[in-house]
Structures are given as C-alpha cells and as structure tokens.
C-alpha cells in the first residue's frame, strides 16, 4: 500500500438528507459503479482526498526507485541487473501515470514535487528502510510489491476513472515484479548457506515494515469511512493486512524461512493466521521522519531536483527560442 493514513477532508459521511442535490447525484453514480471523469462535478473533499492519495502513491513510486537502485550497480549477474533496471524503470513509469492522473484533478506535477520536497506530502514508510544485502531486492519484490498489490488490485475498481485506469496498468507490472522478487528469494533460500542467511536476514528486517505498509487499524476512522463511501478506498487496512499475512506465510514456509513472529499460528476456526501487530510507535516515528533512511531518501530527491534545475531551465529556454522562431516565420 503506497498511500498511508490519507486524511479525507470530510467530518464523516453525510446522510442523504444532508447532501445537496449535486452531492446526492454524485453519490448515486459512485454507488452504481459509474466512473467519475475529470470534467464531471465532484465534491471538493473527493478531489482533495484523491490528490493526496494519488500524489502520495506517485511519490512512493519515485522515492521507491532509490532503495532498489541502490543494488543495480552491484547486481550479481547481467540478467539480474537487466531485470532490476527494467523494474526500477517500471516504477518511474508508474510515478508518471499517477502524476498524470493527479494532474486531471487540477494540480501540477511541479506543485506535488514541491510538497514532497518540503515534507508537506509523504511517501510510503517502507522506503525509509535500507536495502542491506542482495536478498533485500528479492524481499522488496516479494513482500513490498506483494503488499502493494493487495491494495492496488481492489483500486482497479476505484470510482475515479483516470486513477482506475492507471491502477490497471500498474497492477499488471506489479504482479510481474512480485514474481521476480520471489524468484530471487528462491535462488537465495535454496542456495549456499551464506545465501540462505541473506534471505532470512532480509525477511527478518522487511516483515514488520511490510505489515506497516497497510497503515494502522482504521476500522473506526471517519476518514476511511468517507473514502470507502466514495470508493477511493475499497477495504479496511486490517482486512488487507490479514489477506497479506494469509498469502505470505505459506510462501515463506515453502522457502524454508522463518517469519520473525513467535505468535504466528494458523487458526482453524477463523481460517486465518493469528499474528503480532507491528510496533506502531516505530511506524509513527518513521512517518515523522525518524526512520533509518528518511533523510537520505528525501535528501536524494531534493538534490536531484535542485541539481537538475539548470537542465529544466535550459530545456524550457530552448523550447521558447524555438517557438519564437516559428512565430517569426
């Protein structure tokens, strides 16, 4: 899940009687699973919440290039290097679709970038954790992309047309990434003793941060209730987290790796795994900027933006010269 704790602006859901005519018509369209398109009327809260959510998702994609990019120059074979390059390129492409989807709501990419750089907008907490050994690249694909897919698959049905269409393309690529990640994990887990150790180490470090990706429990959150009524959020965080655990634990068992949770056990009655919640105080610290890599990640993006200012200015100046020349002719 690349958007965490997105706050809607509403104070809870309005009853039909409290809604204006426009709001009622809008809600009827959403309820009937009609797609809302950029030029359609929409409540201001819907627009603002979507900008936050899509923007945060886009930022996550581009900041997410960094932990994986960290291993491109050290990838152990040419094929792994090529796969990783292709994957990171895909992530940047996802960022591009999402910024475009956000632009249809009346916010420019530059405005969103500024908000990222100033800290006004966040990106997923997961990218503030380091990638320390090669198996981390497997774990990121398997767990991080796996968790993202849990959230993104239902969002293919989201009410906002451009967002839904972006999500359909993104999901296709993400599920591919997840398989590639698991493929690395298999090579590592079934490899030499050293490789096995790397695989276990990666799982130990990425397990709880992956569970945090879904965000804290939101079953009582007014923001989530509003987002769900608008179909820009489809499931609760707890539902998605449970689904992720249920899917992932057997995969870890197949690899012969141990999920770092002593309380993990299958519950016959519920048909679900029982598991330990992540340390939410750690999550809030990471969100506040105190994760292991917050400063480096955001610092890298700000530096890229500032160092690249002359390039963007140069390209603009050239375009203006060219336009002036065409106008003169």
């Amino acid at each position, binding site marked *: 899940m690349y958007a965490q704790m997105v706050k809607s602006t509403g104070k809870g859901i309005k009853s039909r009687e409290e809604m204006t005519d426009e709001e009622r018509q809008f809600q009827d369209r959403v309820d009937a699973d009609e797609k809302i398109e950029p030029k359609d009327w929409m409540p201001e809260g819907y627009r603002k919440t979507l900008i936050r959510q899509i923007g945060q998702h886009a930022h996550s994609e581009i900041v997410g290039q960094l932990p994986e990019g960290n291993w491109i120059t050290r990838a*152990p074979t040419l094929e792994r290097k090529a796969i990783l390059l292709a994957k990171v390129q895909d992530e940047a492409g996802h960022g591009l679709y999402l910024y475009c989807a956000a632009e249809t709501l009346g916010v420019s990419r530059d405005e969103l970038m500024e908000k990222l750089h100033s800290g006004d907008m966040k990106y997923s907490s997961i990218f503030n954790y380091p990638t320390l050994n090669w198996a981390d690249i497997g774990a990121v694909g398997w767990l991080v992309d796996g968790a993202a897919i849990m959230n993104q698959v239902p969002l293919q049905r989201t009410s906002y047309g451009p967002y839904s269409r972006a999500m359909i393309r993104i999901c296709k690529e993400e599920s591919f990434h997840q398989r590639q990640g698991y493929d690395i994990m298999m090579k590592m887990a079934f490899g030499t003793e050293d490789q096995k150790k790397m695989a276990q180490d990666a799982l130990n470090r990425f397990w709880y941060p992956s569970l945090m990706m879904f965000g804290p429990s939101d079953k009582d959150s007014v923001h989530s209730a509003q987002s769900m009524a608008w179909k820009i959020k489809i499931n609760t965080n707890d539902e998605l987290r449970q689904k992720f655990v249920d899917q992932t634990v057997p995969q870890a068992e197949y690899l012969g790796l141990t999920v770092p949770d002593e309380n993990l056990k299958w519950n016959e009655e519920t048909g679900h795994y029982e598991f330990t919640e992540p340390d939410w105080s750690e999550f809030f610290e990471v969100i506040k900027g105190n994760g292991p890599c917050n400063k480096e990640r955001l610092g890298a993006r700000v530096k890229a933006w500032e*160092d690249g200012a002359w390039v963007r200015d140069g390209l603009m100046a050239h375009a203006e010269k060219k336009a002036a020349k065409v106008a003169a002719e």
Partner: protein
Amino acid sequence: MTRDEAFFEFLLRMGDNTLILGHRVSEWCGHSPVLEEDIALANTALDLIGQTQMWLGLAGEIEGKGRSADDLAYLRDAWDFRNVLLVERPNGDFGQTIMRQFLFDAWHSLMLGRLMQSSDTRVAEIAAKASKEAAYHLERSADLVVRLGDGTAESHARMQAALDDHWPYTGELFLSDAADKAVAEAGLAPDPASLKEEWDEMVTRVLTEATLAIPEGAYVHKGGKAGTHTEHLGYILAQMQWLQRAYPGATW
C-alpha cells in the same frame, strides 16, 4: 594473433564498452533532473546491458574455454577489460553524462550499421538488434545536446565544458591496432579509422546546431582498448563484481 584471437578481442571491446557505459548510466537511477529522464536513462542502461549479454556471450563462445558472459563481466580484472576510456569516465553533471552518451552513440550507431554487413552472421544479427536501440539513443542524446547547448547561458556553458572534457577521449574510438586490422581483413568488422569521417560530419552538424565550439587540439587519451585504464575502472569493477567475488560458486 590468430583470427579467433582477434575476433575475441573485438567482441570484448564491443561488450565492455556497453557494459561499462551501462554501469555508468545506471548510476543515475532515481537521481535525474526530471522523471522522464529517470525513465530514459534506465532504459538506455537496460539496452546497453542487454547488448553486453549478446557480445560477451559470443565472445565466450569464440574463445572456446567455457566462459559465459557473466564470467567475462564479473571475473576479469581491469587489465583484461577492453572498453575505451570515454565510457568509464565519471558521470559528472547531467550535461557531462549526455555529452559522453552523444559522442559514444554517434560512433556506436555507425559501427553497428557497418557490423550488420559482417561476414559472421551472429555478429550481423546482434548488430541488427542493437542498431535499432543505438539509433534511438543517438536521436535522444543528440536532441538533448542541441536543446541544452542552445538553452540558457548556464546550460550552454555546462555543455561546452562537458564537450571540452570528453573530446580528448573520443580519438580512441577510431584508433586501429593489429586486432582491428585482422578482423577488418576477415570482413568481420570495419576498420575503426574508416568511421572517423562520417562521425566527424555527424558530430559537427549536431554540435553546430547546439551552438557549441568543437575543441581545438588533437591530443588523444588512449589505452582502454589495450587494457590500460583510468583509475575509475577499478572502482567500477570493485562494485560490480563484489558479490560474485565474495561468494564464488553461488548461483543467483
């Protein structure tokens, strides 16, 4: 030097150029001036690494000692690398990276075009595939050189500085030695010197449009093709080869 020894040498030169340049370009991942450039740079690096797999794969075949493309990439020391010095030069700013790319792409696209006529069908097939990618790389790097050269005063100054820095490293692309002569005689590849005129024309045309001045002075830094590199290559290899070296025999 036998025909196959010269052929092997030639294939290493092709594959090492794309490997080392691909490595350099991949260092940009997530750090470029605009999102579209992050995508384009990753894509360029990906093409170059793909071409490396083909060239070094064929090199291992011709050598006949059972070495794979990965063995050649990950288990040779710097003195066995045959790339030109230009491609191992550090990225510098975005302008330096793009200028290095342009000067290389112009040579690369000409070389690949000629290799499509190679007497060895395997070479011709690799060249046919790679030349489509190289044509796109050249279109993009030439376009950026023009736009940034003829952009603001600052972008112009940076592009001129990049050109001045890289220029003395371009001559090595056109130097011929015994191996080049042997593969040329066998019809496997063109003599590098024969590409110079067309390259000069192409580069002059683009640089002129970019309002950049071609540096005077003909000094040529060389050595890469014979295995004498700059200090930079050792660091590239230390990073690239580390896992393979630290855990010999593992499969990844």
